[in-house]
């Protein structure tokens, strides 16, 4: 491979020297032919990769629109049947509620903490980072084992109407999204001069809440939005904790439904995947608009 995949140092301009047969053997001519082989290699690799990643998704679309019987026409029957599963609908609502709760709660915890640590406790910056990234190292399946007794207490302490409600999953989800929220907010904080902003606000008589919510916060709104969207995407797709602690959410219900009505569950899976894509595409558009405004 190493000989056929040369480095792209050749510039597009060097193609101009290609024609002469003397120059073809010169280093610049060599570079031009190397460049062409590189472009071919890139096209082939990226096409194959796209196929590998698109085919399973398209197969789901195909699967969910199959008619019953051999050579049956395409049908949206499975898609229509989604509405006939009330448990599924309520699970979708639960997951949406969970994603809102998790985004709001994790931002409420992390935005003030991270700004505060930057400004007043820079010494523990590394410690906070280490703790926040820990859930990447501790597998969720391991965390669940330890969460079982913790959740026995959560259930015991939660007030009547919340007992047994899936919404208590929020506590675990805040931990699961911690690394992603941390990274998003960290990128936002790096992009602005927190110290100067805070000093300016303080010297004009602002209190700490004003500094956080009216000065620094709005300056990192893109990062906050980014973190919130990641929370939504992660929570909507969460299965491990919910299924092992026995709380119903979208993925839990989807998995159960998979055994009863495969076409409907695949249709919902397609819908879920499209939802995630739409979220991320929307986010990238907002990010770009913001970026160009600042530039």
């Amino acid at each position, binding site marked *: 491979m190493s000989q056929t995949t*040369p480095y792209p140092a050749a510039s597009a301009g060097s193609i101009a020297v290609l024609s002469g047969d003397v120059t073809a053997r010169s280093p610049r001519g060599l570079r031009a032919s190397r460049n062409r082989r590189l472009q071919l290699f890139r096209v082939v690799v990226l096409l194959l990769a796209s196929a590998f990643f698109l085919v399973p998704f398209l*197969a789901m679309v195909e699967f969910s629109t199959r008619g019953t019987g051999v050579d049956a026409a395409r049908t949206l029957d499975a898609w229509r049947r989604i509405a006939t599963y009330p448990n599924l609908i309520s699970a979708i609502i639960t997951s949406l509620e969970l994603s809102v709760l998790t985004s709001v709660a994790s931002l409420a915890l992390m935005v003030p903490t991270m700004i505060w640590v930057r*400004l007043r406790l820079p010494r523990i910056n590394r410690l906070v980072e280490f703790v926040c990234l820990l859930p990447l*190292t501790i597998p*969720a399946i391991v965390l669940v084992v*330890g969460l079982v007794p913790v959740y026995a207490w959560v259930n015991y302490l939660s007030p009547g109407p919340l007992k047994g409600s899936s919404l208590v999953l929020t*506590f675990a989800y*805040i931990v699961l999204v911690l690394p992603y929220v941390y990274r998003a907010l960290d990128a936002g904080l790096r992009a602005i001069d927190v110290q100067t902003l805070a000093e300016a606000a303080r010297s004009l008589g602002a209190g700490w809440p004003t500094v956080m919510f009216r000065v620094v916060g709005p300056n990192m709104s893109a990062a906050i939005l980014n973190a919130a969207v990641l929370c939504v995407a992660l929570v909507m797709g969460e299965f491990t904790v919910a299924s092992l602690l026995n709380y119903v959410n979208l993925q839990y219900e*989807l998995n159960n439904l998979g055994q009863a009505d495969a076409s409907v569950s695949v249709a919902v899976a397609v819908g879920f995947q499209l939802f995630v894509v739409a979220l991320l595409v929307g986010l990238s558009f907002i990010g770009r608009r913001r970026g160009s405004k600042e530039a």
Partner: protein
Amino acid sequence: MTDSATMVGGRPSGGGRRLSWSWLGALPFFVYVGLFLLLPTLVVVFGAFVDPSGRPTTANLSALGQDFVVTSFKNSIVLSAESGLIGALLGAVVAYAIATGRPEGGLRRTFVAASGMLAQSGGVTLAFAFIATIGGEGFITVLLRGQGIDVSPTLLFGLSGLTIVYAYFQIPLMVLVFLPALDGIRPQWREATETLGGTSWHYWRHVAVPILTPPFLGALLLLFANAFSAYATAAALISQGSIIAPLQIRVALTSETIAGQENVGKAIALGMIVVVGVVMALYTLLERRSARWLKK
């Protein structure tokens, strides 16, 4: 930097009282992660060494020596190594194809964004996607059947099936992790090789590969840990049985009926922490080494 930070309050800090007020600001965070991250971890670590009534014992750890547990760990390691290696090799090729394009191009942005999404795609949906592709009545299965080729209906429920499915999130993760390393390679290094009379082969053999080896191995370890920790996809694919360690934990958690075995799940979980911990420690070492050349 530190100076301005301590001056923000308008007065220099340093007095014991002010310091304690500052700590108070970080308290909610530490209380929270203490309760929902560190406490569960400690429950696993200590729970592995006590029996259900709380007396210290090594019985849980010796349960780790049982054949089915050993086999599940062995399977997990094989699956993680294979899917890690496939993911690392193919992911590196894809990353190279992306890195050699225009740095600000739409193609690159699209592929990086897609990789970010796909690297997180493990779960029930991914399991369904592969059932719809190479499962018993999957799209590819039906297509191949028309050509007279049979895909084993149990392919997806074994280790080789899991390896294919895991590659779906391992390759994109590799792209994300390895792309910065490829971006760190400077064109000047190739030019220097050429100025000294070196060929493409010399460049790859003596410059690019030696520099890229530590980040490649680091990424490989990360992919290993990623596959080793993965649960949701396998759980959705394989509803009964437990060929890999995470599924063994499911059995321990959902059938806590055998007296005295309640904490075996914690021992298996501890075993997983140890494996992932060792792998991640090696990863940190390699990271430090590769940072030497590829610093931005």
